[in-house]
């Protein structure tokens, strides 16, 4: 589904990514771990076509990204710790706006469907500025899945979430994964990553230092391995 070969990213003299090779199969759930500044978010931005790699090749669904970037963006969804929502619009207006940008079919029905999934059906007419952090993130999940993306990118999606919102996010991720959606998640919570994902990747100083099946190790062994890989940094 996603194939990244020899991805480099340089900003000025600084090399953020140094030869990333990554292969994600359709329906695979990959979790990426690494200390701050390791290059995780930069990698996500390249995979999500938000920024271009300095060198390397990226293919999604067998198509080279450079060929049709705009169309391919329609196949991905991103959930970040920032909501990408507009405070002055209501929840419904935000979803309608994004739905129109993605040219989503049967938009009204789809909005009611995703808003139900995240449990915000009673807040649909409320302005987003009145939402709590948890509600904002739930609406952000609805926004990201509104156009039914084939690939979902998540950048530290658990940041600031309460237990209820974590439960909803896990439920949505589980359902998407069951529907054969490919998921790429960056998190600092390795326990969550081990529980949900098929594959675990550790990035350190712009390179993949470890990748294996998530079920190979338990949380305790994985923590030990992680600390070894990143030189003792959390």
């Amino acid at each position, binding site marked *: 589904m996603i194939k990244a070969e020899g991805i480099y990213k340089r900003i000025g003299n600084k090399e953020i990514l140094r030869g990333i090779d990554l292969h994600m199969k359709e329906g695979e759930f990959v979790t990426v771990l690494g200390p701050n500044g390791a290059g995780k978010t930069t990698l996500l931005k390249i995979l999500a076509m938000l920024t*271009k790699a300095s060198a390397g090749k990226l293919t999604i669904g067998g198509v080279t990204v450079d060929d049709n970037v705009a169309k391919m963006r329609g196949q991905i969804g991103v959930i*970040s710790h920032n909501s990408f929502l507009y405070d002055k619009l209501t929840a419904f207006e935000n979803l309608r706006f994004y739905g129109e*940008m993605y040219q989503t079919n049967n938009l009204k029905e789809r909005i009611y469907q995703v808003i139900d999934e995240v449990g915000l059906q009673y807040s649909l007419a409320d302005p987003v500025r009145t939402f709590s952090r948890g509600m904002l993130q739930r609406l952000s999940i609805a926004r990201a899945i509104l156009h039914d993306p084939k690939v979902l990118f998540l950048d530290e999606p658990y940041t600031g979430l309460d237990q209820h919102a974590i439960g909803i996010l896990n439920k949505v991720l589980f359902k998407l994964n069951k529907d054969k959606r490919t998921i790429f998640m960056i998190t600092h919570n390795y326990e969550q990553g081990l529980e949900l994902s098929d594959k675990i990747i550790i990035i350190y100083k712009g390179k993949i230092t470890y990748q294996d099946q998530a079920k190979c190790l338990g949380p305790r062994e994985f923590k030990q391995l992680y600390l070894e890989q990143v030189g003792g940094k959390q």
Partner: protein
Amino acid sequence: MNFLKQIKAIVWKDLVSEFRTKEMLSAMLIFSFLVIVIFAFAFDPARETTRAVFPGIIWVGISFAAILGLNRSFVAEKENDSLLGLMLTPADRSVIYFAKVIGNLILVWMVVLISMPLYFIFFNFQWAGSIPILALIIFLSTLGFISVGTFLAALAANTRTSEILLPIIVFPIVVPVIIAAVESTAIVLGSVAHGGLMSWLMLLILYDVIFLAVPFVLFDYVLEV
């Protein structure tokens, strides 16, 4: 067709957000009103010299009010990182640019529509020109100003001092538009002798075409900075 629908969606989103708070519009209107009052006191409306500088006063007011609006057009997208959300959509980057140009133009035209009669009242200026030609001058001049300004506002929004930086980078580039706007307005209002109007209008049209085409090509890079 999708291109137009996406432009419409962004323009609608921007205008609805603006009309709910009226942050930009009220600031632009108050600024315009202050310019009118200050210049009305600074220049005696009864003097002949005031008649000569009247078109310049109008365009000082419009230009600075427009800068206030431009400053906010991309800074507002930084809240909740929503510009990133916009960039993730399958819309071409030029959709974002043209939608922002249209949104900014609508606000500037609203300010012009409300403030223009006040200029004539406060300066006791007897109208003697052609309204359609003045409307054409305003359309072409504001289009040129906003097309450059929107492009540079996107660039400046990535800096911490965008509100200071934007006027500094915009005004040197829009000098031809402001000169053409002032000169052609002066001709229409009869402040100077007739003649040369067509060449000023041609300059404005040429400028508009160039500065709508250049961002179309470069806007992708500006958003990536």
